[in-house]
């Protein structure tokens, strides 16, 4: 259908622009801030034109934070590394556990199957603060406090349900007959899973992995309570910029830019891959 009257097109353009401004403005503003000194940022009225400085980035990368109250050591790059380690490890573990589980939920009807699947999803409903106190007590008892393994484990609460539910949907979209055909051709169910189901659900698995990576990356509270300084991810590490002598807006902005960039690049790269290749050879319906 073509609703292409001139007024309609103009209205649509304006509406799109408004939405774009609403969502993009904070990001652009942060980017601009990251190239300004604290004084420039706090100027009233703010100016669009300024002399850019790389001081904020230098400070982050070198780990030397100069404030009015004196020099401060920060470990931002280490935090970034931690974020990366924790998120990747969590996603890999969640994929190893979640993809076979998703397959089982998609293909087999077993007693309590729906209940178990829903229980796993319901972990996402509970506010993390609710479980934090008991969790940290358990972790102290178990000696998991302040270990990478402990954090990766608790991140499964975030990643596993997501992967399970997204990938399950993709498995359900694959006609079981395709796997049946492969088995009748003389292959075991294990081969049917690895050679047929997993490759065909590939885009879905990638999407679920990417999403859970981003969610893990953005997590704050679990790491805040369960990790000490040297295991902290960037989200917690950013607190270091709230210093005794004030808040270092410039560095915060630069830190945000640095921590957003990897996930953004990942998403942009994967987007192309996600869109491609969902069309199956089978006739639908």
């Amino acid at each position: 259908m073509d609703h292409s009257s001139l007024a309609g097109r103009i209205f649509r353009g304006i509406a799109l622009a408004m939405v774009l401004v609403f969502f993009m403005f904070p990001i652009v503003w942060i980017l601009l801030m990251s190239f300004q000194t604290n004084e420039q940022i706090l100027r009233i009225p703010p100016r669009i034109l300024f002399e850019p400085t790389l001081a904020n980035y230098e400070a982050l990368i070198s780990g030397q934070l100069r404030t009015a109250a004196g020099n401060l050591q920060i470990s931002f790059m280490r935090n970034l590394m931690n974020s990366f380690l924790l998120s990747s490890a969590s996603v890999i573990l969640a994929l190893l556990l979640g993809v076979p589980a998703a397959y089982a939920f998609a293909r087999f009807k077993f007693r309590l199957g729906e209940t178990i699947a829903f229980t796993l999803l319901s972990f996402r409903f509970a506010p993390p603060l609710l479980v934090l106190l008991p969790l940290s007590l358990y972790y102290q008892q178990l000696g998991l406090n302040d270990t990478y393994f402990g954090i990766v484990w608790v991140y499964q609460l975030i990643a596993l349900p997501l992967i399970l539910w997204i990938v399950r949907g993709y498995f359900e979209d694959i006609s079981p007959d395709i796997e049946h055909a492969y088995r009748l051709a003389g292959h075991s169910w294990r081969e049917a899973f690895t050679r047929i189901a997993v490759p065909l659900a590939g885009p879905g698995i990638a999407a679920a992995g990417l999403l859970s990576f981003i969610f893990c990356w953005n997590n704050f509270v679990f790491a805040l309570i369960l990790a000490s300084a040297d295991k902290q991810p960037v989200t917690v590490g950013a607190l270091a910029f709230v210093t005794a002598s004030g808040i270092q807006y410039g560095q915060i902005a630069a830190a945000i830019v640095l921590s957003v960039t990897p996930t953004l690049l990942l998403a942009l790269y994967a987007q192309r891959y996600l869109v491609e290749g969902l069309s199956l050879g089978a006739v639908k319906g």
Partner: protein
Amino acid sequence: MARLELKAVDKCFGAVSCAKGVSLTVEPGEIVAVFGPSGSGKTVLLRMIAGMFEPDDGDILVGGRSIVDAPPEQRGIGMAFQNFALFPHMSARDNIASGLRATGASDIAAKVTAMSRLLKIEHVLGHRPRELSNGQKQRTALARALIGNPEVLLLDDPLRNVDAKLRYEMRLELPSLLRRSSAAALYVTQDYREAMAIADRIAVLINGRLVQVARPEEIYARPASVAVARLFGDPSINLSEVSPVADQGRLTAAIAGTEIMLDRNERETSTRQRCWLGVRPDDVVVTRQNSGGAIPARVVAITPMHERAVLLLRFADGSEWLAAMAPEALEAGADEEVFVQFAPEAALLFDHASGERIGLPPRRQAA
């Protein structure tokens, strides 16, 4: 080569019974069509043989050996699916070769080439399924099912999703193709013409029960019940409720108030209370003049079909019959008053309560 035997197979899904005591033998090299209305359990039956469902009771044997406990990959079965079920991420060549690879066969490339030549898909072997037309997909799926020389071939309505012209072509090609492999072949279809064209024998499945297993012409001429008679024939058989009366050695019945002579059946000594009388539209003769004993009717509409003229006739009591004839033989036009007759031996009688056919009137044999 091995024969396929089903022995009293039962299968329920919850309260729904899909197979009730199904027993059937398919000889090697034989094609048996499993035919029935949708939801009659045809596909479930095939899937039990393929190993996707387990029968609740009964046994399935290939070459005298029970396969019920074997996983699908060890049953020696080739199967073609209604939705083709090709592997979307593999080329047509790899799709066809997938079965040979698993068994470590030699000469895979030569075998794939030979099979694809037989099915006329050599030129698309390098294509992925989504680049194939429906006809090519279906041929690829058939090649994949046939290539391993399976002992049992299962074909689950393989022509359902291809267009009419291709379906017709395949209908001519399939029997010889299947016979080459000398497998015991079960062919599921919802189209009675396809079943008659392709199969050596037809197994009619209604509500999970095999109602009749016989050669196509036998089923068409002597259906076991009203339900079977209604399934075979397009347009389908005319049915009227009658109470035949035996009088002075003659059997007569009233249709829409007109006394009609029926074939006297020796095996039928007493007259039944109520029966269904069935006459195939091809056996109905429509004339403009009443030559005696004909039923008056009005032509409601003429609907040409399969190179024949099909007349919808309405009797005085409001009941309707169809008549089919060559367009040249058509005498009457729409909305005309006509007279309807049929040869006594063309009428089939069915018990009203059970639906089973009464006696065996010798049906006129076509030349």
